[in-house]
């Protein structure tokens, strides 16, 4: 059994690395994307200020805090203040306000945006420490100021874990989906059906062959990016590897489901696009989902890519170890198993 799996795996790998055009494309594309984004997003400024507000966002205390009605500021409800403070440190949030009984706000003393938003807060909520209360015009309460510090997280640092995940997604989905449909169309599968090879053995070989390719390509992209961009990697490499491996397994299995019965590459291509584009847009690869609508946020929780990106960012940016990203790894591995079982059950040689 393992000999048959290995045989198919070796044959598929051989096909992959001898196809020079495909090979270079697999490695060049993500590197080019990282470079393009490094070029485009060297300026970290954004046109809208982002302010975190502690609470579930249901009822903003706008009476006590007229500041919360300021236009052109995006107010983002925050349920986990400690995580949000980290974002203030990395300039991802310009300010964090806790409008509770003992109001406080956090601002990064190194952030220009933070400085500006702080002026807005104090201007709207009163007239700053020295002139508060006397004129009776302002109904605002002056929150207690807490300063934090930290260098800005460049957009390219933030986006890199997502670009790696995105590359894994494309490579996983098309790498098995497209190939198996082509095999079915041109009769390779029919020929294999006539041998003692079982569907299960065939699919396992495809999964591991593609996993090797995905990991190899990701390693090249990661190394290439680390030569060109000085990005942070604060967490454990093992945790990062586990996140990407479980994510790749999950997406490869999803590709197997898509390809389990299709006969034409065009339909497979359409279906794979249908799956990958929502993930690309809603999984927070390019922009944070924090400011998105509730429905979009809920939807994004159902997408495997979201959890790969979250896990990878937790490791690379927040310095998470294996234990901290265990929920993501567990979820992705569980989904992988479910998808693989479904794919094996649905699979037809012709």
């Amino acid at each position, binding site marked *: 059994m393992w000999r048959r799996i290995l045989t198919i795996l070796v044959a598929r790998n051989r096909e992959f690395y001898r196809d020079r055009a495909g090979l270079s494309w697999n490695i060049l594309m993500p590197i080019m994307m990282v470079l393009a984004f490094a070029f485009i997003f060297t300026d970290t400024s954004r046109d809208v200020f982002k302010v975190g507000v502690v609470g579930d966002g249901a009822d903003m205390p706008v009476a006590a805090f007229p500041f919360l009605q300021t236009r052109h500021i995006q107010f983002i409800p925050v349920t986990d203040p400690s995580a949000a403070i980290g974002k203030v440190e990395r300039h991802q949030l310009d300010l964090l306000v806790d409008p509770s009984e003992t109001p406080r706000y956090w601002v990064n003393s190194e952030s220009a945006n933070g400085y500006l938003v702080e002026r807005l807060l104090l201007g709207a909520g009163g007239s700053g420490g020295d002139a508060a209360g006397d004129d009776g015009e302002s109904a605002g309460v002056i929150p207690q100021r807490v300063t934090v510090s930290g260098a800005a997280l460049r957009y390219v640092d933030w986006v890199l874990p997502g670009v790696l995940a995105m590359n894994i997604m494309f490579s996983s989905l098309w790498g098995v989906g497209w190939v198996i449909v082509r095999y079915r169309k041109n009769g390779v599968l029919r*020929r294999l059906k006539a041998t003692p090879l079982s569907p299960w053995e065939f699919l396992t070989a495809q999964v591991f062959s593609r996993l090797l390719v995905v990991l190899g390509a990701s390693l090249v992209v990661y190394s290439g990016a680390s030569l060109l961009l000085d990005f942070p990697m604060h967490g454990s490499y093992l945790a990062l590897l586990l996140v990407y491996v479980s994510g790749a397994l999950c997406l490869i299995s999803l590709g197997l489901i898509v390809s389990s019965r299709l006969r034409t590459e065009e339909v497979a291509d359409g279906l794979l696009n249908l799956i990958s584009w929502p993930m690309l847009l809603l999984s927070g690869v390019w922009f944070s989902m924090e400011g998105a609508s509730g429905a979009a946020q809920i939807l994004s929780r159902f997408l495997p890519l979201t959890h790969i990106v979250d896990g990878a960012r937790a490791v690379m940016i927040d310095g998470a170890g294996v234990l901290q990203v265990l929920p993501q790894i567990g979820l992705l591995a569980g989904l992988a198993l479910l998808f693989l079982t479904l794919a094996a059950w649905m699979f037809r040689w012709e």
Partner: protein
Amino acid sequence: MRAVDGIGFRVDAGQCFGLLGPNGAGKTTTLEMLEGIQTPTSGTVLYRGRPLDRAYRESVGIQFQATALQDFQTVRESLSMFASLYRRTADRDELIRLCNLAEILDRDTRKLSGGQRQRLLLAIALVNDPDLVFLDEPTTGLDPQSRRNFWGLIETVRRRGKTIVLTTHYMEEAERLCDRIAIVDHGRIIAEGQPARLVRDHFPATVIRLPESAWPVGATLPPTAERRDGTIELFAEEVPPMLAEIERAGADLTDLRVATPNLEDLFLKLTGHDLRS
């Protein structure tokens, strides 16, 4: 859609059995049911008296009509890939010699000629040293020279005691290779038996053909004659008296042909249409 209906026959061990018929007659469907690739909607296929099971895959070799091999592999790699999928394997060197692959072992499988490709596909079909070999139109698309070479190959395989089931629409191929044939048309077997005997049974007589224009206008045709596509066919158990009769009628003998009936004639007679139509 029902491709074949009520087909039944047996193949004896060591025999070469041919399914003969035009394109779309149901040959490939029948063969695939025997191979275990398709499951019949009704009826059974027995191998050595038992229904087909997983172990069956180990003891048969199949050469499909159209097979793509995995890209970017050499002949040698394709052979060893398929060999690794089976428990029992044929001796590799002998297989390479038998199928005359030595010179193309390191060639990419996409760069093979038609004949080389068929030889590789046959080698792959034999890679597990099967007892039973299925060949689906093995020489279709080959030039006459390669076809003859391939026939020689199949005969060698047969001499080694393999049972062969093949489909073809070449009468010559069936006549040369097969011990028994079944003629299939529109999903049914219309005749079955040894090729030579089938012909003898259906054509006790020799056929003499004349262009219609060679027959004098007004002269009556002998009772056994038939007009077909501008040709007059006369059937004779004894040739000389028939020739004498034709001469008496005053026919022009320039384009006269005496033909011993073959499978092609048999097919025409049984189905009323040409094999390649």
